[in-house]
């Protein structure tokens, strides 16, 4: 779909690393260029025409985001540099005071580093306990398994909506309901789902949610932290400075602004925000349901075709997203990626920043092909053809 909108696709590459970052369509690139060529100015200064344009466009994006994730208030949307900053802000701006020693946080072994390390760090600093929800035979989270590990000390469940190695979709609506019943906060890492699946933060009872624009057609260095107003309002800023204060005196008397400005200190990534706004409009036009349906179709096609490849092992044939992880027997994943690079096929090798998922899938390094709506079955055919030439790997990469 829509391949003509992506200049990168004119470079003779097959881009299967959308889990790492997606390509950017022309309207997104143009929104960034327009900011730098037609109305460069800082936001929230409003003293002249172009600065007013910036202000209103910047704040319009907040409304776009609010509608996109179905939040109830615009001041629940805070711009960050991405998922990593969003989760860290929640952990070190809110959870560090909300949680007490021995309180339990539930995560899984297939989370990305950015949804594990902040919690492990808080465990070191405050003595909270991080527990792993056991996964089923397909490496999925089930409500039963969550219920088994919940105790009276469980205060938070923090999960990716879609994981970045297995690519499984978590039943977040049911988990949200469970959290409501048990009075548990629910943190969702939407990095891998945001440009692929619709989300409703209210219906899913999500306390905090983070995502990055660059994984949903937008620029790098920009993302979102959503927080339920009553919770977000108790989050202490990590950064202090311009833009977030109402006034301050030499006496030390000071007042910070209301949400969301209080959590957006300093000059923001304005070009990034405007690009992200355009990405959301673009995604809405295609429709996330259509995108998901098409990705699942690509994945099914890829699984069927890849089974023709000798010596292949696919680790997540069943997951219902556009991510497929595999290895060729006796070939190290990084060597395989270098081999595919020779055919201009971009896949990612390694552990994909999910360094403990190896305890789940029993392999520490894999190749990952992650699809998006601009990928095609013909590109998957090219991957299969290349993999069938595996005998030639060392002639090519050495």
């Amino acid at each position, binding site marked *: 779909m829509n391949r003509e909108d992506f200049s990168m696709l004119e470079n003779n590459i097959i881009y299967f690393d959308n889990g790492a970052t997606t390509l950017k369509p022309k309207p997104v690139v143009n929104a960034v260029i327009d900011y730098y060529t037609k109305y460069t100015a800082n936001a929230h200064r409003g003293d002249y025409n172009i600065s007013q344009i910036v202000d209103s466009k910047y704040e319009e994006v907040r409304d776009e985001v609010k509608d996109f994730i179905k939040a109830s208030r615009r001041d629940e949307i805070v711009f960050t540099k991405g998922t990593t900053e969003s989760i860290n802000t929640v952990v070190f701006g809110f959870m560090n005071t909300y949680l007490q020693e021995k309180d339990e946080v539930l995560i899984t072994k297939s989370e990305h580093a950015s949804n594990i390390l902040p919690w492990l760090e808080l465990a070191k600093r405050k003595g909270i306990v991080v527990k792993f929800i056991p996964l089923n035979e397909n490496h999925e989270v089930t409500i039963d398994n969550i219920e088994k590990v919940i105790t009276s000390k469980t205060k938070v469940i923090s999960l990716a909506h879609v994981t970045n190695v297995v690519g499984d979709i978590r039943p977040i609506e049911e988990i949200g309901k469970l959290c409501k019943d048990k009075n548990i906060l629910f943190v969702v890492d939407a990095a891998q789902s945001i440009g692929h699946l619709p989300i409703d933060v209210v219906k899913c009872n999500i306390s905090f949610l983070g995502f990055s624009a660059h994984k949903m057609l937008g620029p790098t260095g920009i993302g979102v932290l959503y927080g339920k107003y009553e919770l977000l309002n108790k989050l202490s800023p990590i950064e202090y400075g311009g833009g977030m204060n109402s006034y301050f005196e030499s006496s030390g008397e000071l007042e910070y602004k209301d949400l969301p400005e209080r959590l957006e200190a300093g000059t923001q990534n304005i070009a990034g925000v405007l690009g992200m706004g355009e990405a959301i409009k673009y995604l809405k036009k295609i429709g996330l349901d259509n995108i998901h349906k098409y990705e699942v179709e690509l994945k099914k096609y890829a699984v069927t075709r890849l089974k023709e490849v000798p010596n292949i092992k696919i680790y997540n044939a069943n997951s219902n997203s556009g991510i497929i992880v595999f290895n060729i027997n006796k070939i*190290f*994943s*990084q*060597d395989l990626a*270098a081999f595919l690079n020779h055919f201009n096929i971009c896949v990612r*090798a*390694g*552990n994909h*920043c999910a*360094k403990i998922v190896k305890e789940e899938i029993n392999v*520490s*390094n894999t190749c990952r092909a992650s699809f998006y709506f601009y990928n095609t079955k013909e590109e998957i055919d090219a991957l299969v053809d290349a993999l069938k030439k595996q005998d030639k790997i*060392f*002639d090519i*990469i*050495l």
Partner: protein
Amino acid sequence: MDEKLKRDIILDNYQNPMNRGLTDSNGYIKVNTRNSSCVDNVDVMAKLKDGVFIDIRFDGEACAISTSATSIMIKTLIGKTIAETEKIIDNYEKMINEEEEYDKDLLGELCVYDTVSKQPSRKKCATLPFESIKKIIALAKDTK
């Protein structure tokens, strides 16, 4: 060296590496080294006697370049003194980084990696075993 010969040497050392597998015997210094792009993960252990490497062994998960480089390094360094080893490392790094002239005779088979810098992502793989040996030398000097 001819490209085909280089490839054969690398492949042979990848598929049948020297001294793969660790030992529980006493007297070894053991280190773990990982590629910062988070893929290779290799343990190297070495035994020194009077400042000479009398045994070096390794194990772990690593790509073709890094595994073969470990194997060739082990072949090259067993029997060498720490001072000789440091000189080899210095010349090897010059070769990998295409910096200046280096001593080809000193490097011997290690010269098979003289074009690895054409693939910048593989440079780290080729130098990984030497990172381990450098750590081992530092530890050996420390305990003296």
